[in-house]
Every structure is written in C-alpha cells, then in structure tokens.
C-alpha cells in the first residue's frame, strides 16, 4: 500500500462513462439481466408443454391461472401466512439460539472440546427422520413444526458461530486486552463483528434448510400450510395447482434471498470493503 489516495473509497472508483453506466440505465440493465433467464425458461416451458403429454406439464398460462385461483384469496391467509410465520419464527429462533450458544461454546475451550464431537453426530441426522418422534411428543401443532425447522436450521449457524468466535485474530485480542476493554465491549465490538462473516454464511445455509423443513413438516399429519396443500394437490391430480405451489415456494426462496442480501450488505459492508481492497 502506498501513501497516495488518502480517503478514496474503493466504491468511488467507478468513473463516469464506464462500461456499466449509472442511474436509471444501470437499473434497467440489471433488471433485464435478472429477468432474462426466467423469461427464456417460461418460453421453453410453453414449447415443451405443447409438444408433450399435457397432463403433467400444463402450459404456463394454465399454471398462472391456477396460481391466481389457488393462492390469491382465502388460501393466502389459511395456508401461506401460517407457513411463512412458522418459517420466520423457526429461522429467527435458530439464528438467535445458534449465535448465543455458539458464542459461549466458542469462547469456552473445555465446553467446546466436550460438545463438538457430539455435535457432529447430531448434525448428521437428517431432521425429517425426527418428525414422527417430535410429532408424538408435541402433537400435530404449530409448535411441532417450528421445532422441526429449528432442529435442522440451528446447526449451520451454531457451528459457524463457534468457528468464527474461536478464530478471532490474536492481535485483535491483544489489542482488546492492552486497552483493557470490558467483557461486554469485547463481545460487542470484537468477538461478534469478527465472527459475523462466518455467522452470515451459516445463516444463508440455515435459510434453505428451514424452507425445506417448513414444507416437509407440513406433509405429515397437517391440515393447512404450503406443504400440506402441495401434497393434497398431488394426491388429487390437480397438476396445475401443484405446479403453482412449487412456483410459490420458489418465490418464497427468492424473497428470503433478497431479505438476506439486504441485511448482509448492511452488516458486512466492512468485510466486502476489505475484500475489495485485498483483491485490488
């Protein structure tokens, strides 16, 4: 590094007239890129649906009609909202529990050595196999479904937090000691921010696991929810409706990814900045 460019932020490096412009032009360009592939896929699907057995592959228009009829209306409040609520509660609980436990375990060495080998065992168990057991204990309730989501989604957050907390840079720790930072300050200003990139990677994994478990938990003795509806449509040969449910699941995934991306960019602005500087 040299002494030039005192405060120039790397983000300010985009010069006017560069290949990808700024303002509305840039916005439409990125929207175009984002929607390009979906449009191509829908067209291909339409072609595919006209040349094959239409029974299992309805046309995009039929699925669209089914989507509007099925999900916009009372089903939204009866099935979609409860599912998403359980997903949100399960995910938030996993993140909270994962970070809290992970921080304690990451900081206390004997606890880590005591627990980590067992964690590998529990983590390896696919959570769906536990659903019947949990259902027997808790009954076919919303709580049971939230617990299933949590049991699966907590692991990546927990293990990544342990790793992130343990990996705190030694010079950063010496700095904290030299300036006699209090325990709370260390946690808030050193341990957690330093572990945050790892924690966020864990949260990203937890999100996809939680979405899968949300669906699966509703496939066993349930009477409402997205997963229940999709299975119901499958069993009753309501093929277009089934596809519309699958499309809805995909859209939920996109929504989660957008929320995650927004939060991650805000929380890890420094991390992306450091990376950008390191890679020139």
């Amino acid at each position, binding site marked *: 590094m040299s002494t030039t460019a005192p405060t120039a932020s790397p983000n300010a490096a985009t010069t006017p007239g560069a290949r990808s412009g700024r303002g509305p032009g840039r916005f439409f360009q990125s929207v175009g890129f984002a929607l390009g592939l979906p449009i191509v896929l829908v067209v291909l699907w339409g072609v595919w649906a006209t040349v094959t057995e239409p029974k299992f592959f309805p046309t995009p228009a039929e699925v669209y009609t089914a989507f509007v009829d099925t999900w916009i209306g009372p089903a939204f409040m009866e099935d979609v909202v409860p599912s998403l609520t359980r997903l949100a509660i399960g995910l938030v609980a996993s993140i909270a529990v994962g970070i809290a436990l992970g921080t304690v375990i990451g900081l206390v060495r004997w606890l880590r050595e005591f627990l980590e080998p067992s964690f590998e065992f529990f983590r390896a168990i696919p959570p769906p196999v536990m659903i019947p057991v949990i259902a027997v204990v808790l009954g076919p309730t919303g709580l049971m479904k939230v617990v299933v989501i949590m049991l699966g989604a907590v692991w990546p957050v927990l293990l990544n937090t342990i790793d992130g907390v343990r990996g705190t840079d030694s010079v950063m720790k010496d700095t904290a000691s030299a300036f006699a930072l209090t325990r709370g*300050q260390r946690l808030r200003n050193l341990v957690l*921010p330093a572990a945050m990139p790892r924690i966020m990677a864990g949260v990203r994994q937890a999100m996809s696991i939680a979405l899968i478990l949300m669906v699966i938990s509703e496939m066993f003795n349930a009477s409402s929810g997205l997963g229940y509806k999709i299975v119901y449509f499958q069993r009753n040969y309501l093929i277009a409706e089934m596809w519309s449910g699958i499309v809805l699941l995909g859209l939920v995934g996109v929504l989660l990814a957008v929320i995650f991306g927004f939060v991650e960019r805000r929380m890890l602005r420094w991390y992306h900045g450091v990376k950008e500087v390191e890679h020139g």
Partner: protein
Amino acid sequence: MADTLLTVEHVKKTYNSSTGTVEAIADISFTMNAGELVCIVGPSGCGKTTLLKCIAGLLRPTDGSVELHGKRVTAPPPNMALVFQEYGRSLYPWLTVRGNVELPLKHKKLTREERRQLVDDAIEAVGLSHADGSYPWQLSGGMQQRVAIARAVAYQPEVLIMDEPFAAVDAQTRADLEDLVRALHKDRGMSILFVTHDIDESVYLGERVIVLSNAPTWVQEDLAIDLDPERDQITTRALPRFTELRTHVYQQVQRAKRGQAVRPGA
C-alpha cells in the same frame, strides 16, 4: 526528571514446548524515567516482542517483575497504551477511524464531551482530521498506523509502548511517522518505549538506546544518545555524532548477532 516510571527487574521468560524448554529471555533489567523516549534495539528473533508483552502485562514472565510506578504489572495496566506492528490486525475494520480511537475510552469515566475532545485532539495530532469517518481499510498503511497512534494518544497513557510500529511501511512514510513520534514526545511530554530492529531509527528517535543480545536475551548495552532534542531528518542524520552513535550501536548489534558479547556473571 528522576521520577522512575517503569522498572524491569530480572525478567526471564522460558517457553515449554514438546521438544523441551526454550529460553527466550535470560535476564533483562532496566528502568525508564517519566518523560523519556527509550528505544530497544536488537537482532531479529531476540525476543523483543516477548519482552514487550511481558512489560505490557499480556504475558507473564517466568521470573522477575515489571513495575509501573512501583506497582507490579500482572495484567495490562490502564495507564499504558500499545501500538502494534500489524496495524491491519490491530485496528478493527468494522469501526471507522473515529470509532477505533474512541472505543478504549468508552469504559473510562468521561463525559461525552470530554471523550469527543480527546478523540478530536488525538486524530488532529496525527493529522487525520479529514479522514475520521473513513474505515481503516480505505487508508494507506502509514495512515492506518497513524490511526493506531491516535488511539493510543487518546487513551492518555503514562507510557506508550510501540512494537516495531513502522516495520511495514515504506521509507518516506516511515520518516514522517518518526517525526510524529518525536513530536508527541517533545510537545506532549509523552514517555515512549519504542522497540525497533532499525538501528538508524533507534538512534534518531531515542534519548537512550538499549541494545539487546541474541536469545536467550539480556541487556548488552544501555547507551545515552547525546544528540540535541531538536531533531530533523536531514540535519540530525548528517551529524558526525549521529554517525558515531549509529556505528557504535551497529557494531553492538553485530556482536549480538554473532553471540560474541559475553553476559556478565553468566
């Protein structure tokens, strides 16, 4: 001036490893008065950093003691500040320049206004007032080390300890930072213990230069630098006396490297 600030007495440090015990520091004793700028110089691998960590209370010496104002150091004392060599790992990248300087002050009993003034003053002293909202990684290496110095200055320590702070910056930046350290010492009367492997730097900066031996380390020489306190990169370094002192220290370090110097009484 004879107010003793720091007393290092027979500090010894051995490490236990699987291959046996390694003696890093054999026996180091020296004292430092309030308001002094003392440089510690020695061959690489002579345990300078180990010694500093013992003095700063980050490491417990195997034997001997470190006293600050007559109080034994067992944990990092609140009236001591450190500047590390690895500025990139010592500043917190998630905090701005201002946030980094302010952080250690938050647990001191200060009003918001006092804290703000200390931070402003320290950032101004290192010449970074224009960058106080930037993040460390947006700055050059030399400027990052200035932030670390500002953090130490704002902490209002009685003694400032610097561990090879300029080893990783380029030569021109280094000269500027050396003058910054001289200015902090002269204008603010700060007591500074400065560790370096650069012989010229130790003579240019210090009022005293302590030459360490090869590991296991002891104090090979404690040399007073009788240069004018007004120092200047061009004229001071051109003085015949500077050259003499520099040559003397250089020879001492060479002897230390070859292990030719014999520890008295060992």
